[in-house]
């Protein structure tokens, strides 16, 4: 499985929360290679199904959100400079001197310029730039901009993926296209593994603005068990062991009230038996992931969370280790293959 090539394709495809339509179609075509049935729901989540061996098979849902953070056009000034607001958690500090695409009547390129340093007031030198003070320069006159761009248009970051040393990979939108790549990896693994349960792969929308796509998908699919794949913070200089996980040491399996205890324990045992590297992510409450929404869907869904360590989350240089995606796919596909008839017992508390 060539994860780098998959990631290069899906990371540069624009899919800001609430505007996933195009990306959903793109991902659906990728799913069709493996799934017997692929649908795009009302929220533009992509649902692909791979049937299990058993007629009385249980339903497992695996989610990874496909949306990305981005920007929205707020106003256009008399000189054609475009002001913006954020969609999802965007750090304005990392936007200066970045390249963007405004998705207007057509896509136009722009840069987020910084005010020349010698004109900064003393407080501006120290204080972080505010979102409201950032402007996009499209190199067009106000009249030209207004013909193409409207208030409310979506803006995505333009950053070419960078292959770093030792399987490290840097790109925008790895949160959570890395998870979407893992879904495809799991599908590929399942072609070589037998499994009783029917597997519903959900590449979900609107996670970054409130876990909405997963909410809808969980209700519609109504699974017996859900596994959420997302990213967690990768270890960086100065980060603490509790909040960040080293890259290349395997996926982080979350434990805590948001996750089903017996199934999580089973997954950890499996990782040990199969020699799949893993880390334990202790989550005392809200995991900040779709697991939080899925767990309480309908009459409650036993939920697991597997996370891929990612450095510099929500920047255009998000960085991960390809090995961690591979091991995430290995772990989750083995787990699906293993839980068959014994699932009933495991699911009690």
């Amino acid at each position, binding site marked *: 499985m060539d994860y780098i090539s998959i990631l290069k394709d899906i990371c540069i495809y624009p899919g800001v929360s609430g505007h996933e339509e195009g990306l959903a179609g793109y991902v659906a075509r990728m799913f069709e290679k493996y799934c017997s049935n692929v649908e795009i729901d009302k929220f533009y989540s992509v649902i692909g199904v791979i049937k299990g061996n058993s007629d009385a098979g249980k339903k497992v849902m695996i989610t990874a959100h496909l949306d990305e953070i981005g920007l929205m056009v707020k106003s256009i*000034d008399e*000189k054609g*400079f475009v002001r913006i607001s954020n969609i999802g*958690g*965007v*750090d304005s*500090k*990392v936007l*200066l*001197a*970045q*390249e963007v695409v405004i998705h207007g009547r057509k896509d*136009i*390129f*722009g*840069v*987020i*310029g*910084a*005010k*020349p*340093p*010698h*004109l900064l007031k003393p407080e501006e*030198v*120290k*204080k*972080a*730039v505010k979102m409201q*003070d950032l*402007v996009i*320069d*499209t*190199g*067009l*006159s106000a009249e*030209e901009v207004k013909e193409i761009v409207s208030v409310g248009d979506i803006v995505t970051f333009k950053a070419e993926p*960078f*292959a*770093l*040393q*030792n399987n*490290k990979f*840097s790109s925008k939108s790895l949160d959570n296209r890395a998870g979407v790549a893992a879904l495809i990896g799991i599908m590929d693994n399942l072609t070589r593994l037998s499994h009783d349960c029917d597997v519903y792969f959900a590449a979900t929308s609107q996670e970054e603005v409130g876990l909405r796509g997963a909410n809808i998908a969980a209700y519609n699919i109504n699974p017996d068990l859900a596994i959420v794949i997302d990213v967690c*913070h990768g270890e*960086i*200089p*100065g*980060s603490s062991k509790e909040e*960040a996980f080293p890259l*290349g040491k395997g996926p982080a399996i979350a434990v805590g009230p948001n996750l089903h205890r017996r199934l999580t324990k089973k997954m950890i045992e499996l990782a040990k038996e199969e020699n799949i590297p893993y880390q334990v992510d202790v989550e005392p409450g809200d995991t*900040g992931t779709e697991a939080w929404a899925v767990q309480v869907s309908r009459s409650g869904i036993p939920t697991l969370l597997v996370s891929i360590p990612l*450095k*510099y*989350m*929500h*920047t*255009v*240089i998000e*960085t991960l280790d390809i090995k961690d995606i591979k091991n995430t796919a290995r772990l989750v596909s083995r787990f699906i293959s293993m839980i068959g008839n014994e699932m009933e017992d495991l699911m009690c508390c």
Partner: protein
Amino acid sequence: MLLKELTELNGVSGNEDEVREYIKKEALLHATEVKVDSMGNLICYKKGKSSEYKIMLSAHMDEVGFIVTGYKDGVIKFSPIGGIDERILPGARVLVGDKKIPGVIGSKPIHLQDKEERGNNIKLKGMYIDIGADNKEELERLTSPGDYIAFYSKYTEFGDNCIKAKALDDRVGCAMLLEILKESYQFDLYACFTVQEEVGLRGAGVAAYTVNPDLAIVLEGTTCSDVPDVNEHEYSTVMGQGAVLTLMDRTSYPNKKLVEFIYNTARENNIPVQYKKTTTGGNDAGKIQLTRGGVVVASISVPCRYIHSPVSVMSKKDFESCLNLVKKALDKLSGDASLIGSFKD
């Protein structure tokens, strides 16, 4: 366009080799003689029909960037070379060393920042470059302290005749100078591609001493602050309003008669021209002017927004205006050599 090739080459001050090699190859097609001095300045001589006067045109090859200073926690620590606004660094992509190893300038994700960190800029001291190395040994195997680091940015044409690139300061000057070198004049022309402008105008003085010109014109990319939240009286230059003439900056007073001569040449030929309205910054003219017994100088520049960043922006129209103006001015000087001596009087 030559500017694409020139801006995608790396030539951080002190390490201009790649840019020099490229320019040298082009220059050899048109120059009478090409020399490289001990600092790395490329001096291209084009013999004139009469050798009564020597005119020096200069553009610097170097660009701002960084240098590897050491390692910490599996990442590269670095120092800037030249004036770089540290606010633009988090999230930047760079190429490290001669092997051009890709790296990123990482910073703490917003989710892990405390309130104070969220509200304040990230300090250069705390920044680092991540190349994906697993440990210090690997970093040491792939890089060395002293390795030069350049911004990574692809040349992009966009908007209304605009270009986005790194190092427009001063590859625009280099591109113009290579064009000028194709022309033949009455006077001897010395096209000097200089080094180390960004760390204190180091190369140009040396080159001017060697050339000992009667007159020098510096071709530059200069600051352009016609952006929101800047008062109009603070605009140094305006993008799209043509070639920029400097009246005064922190390093030089260009020769008043020469500046006036160039300004009038622009007006006579309907070439858009503007004065730089702030006195901030400085360029090679400062060093050239003070060489030997003093040299008559002027600067002609292309306005560049977001200068010294990987997303510098300029208008192709301004580039054309500059190049046209330099050509027309040189034509006039070539046609009436007595003008060259007259600026001193």
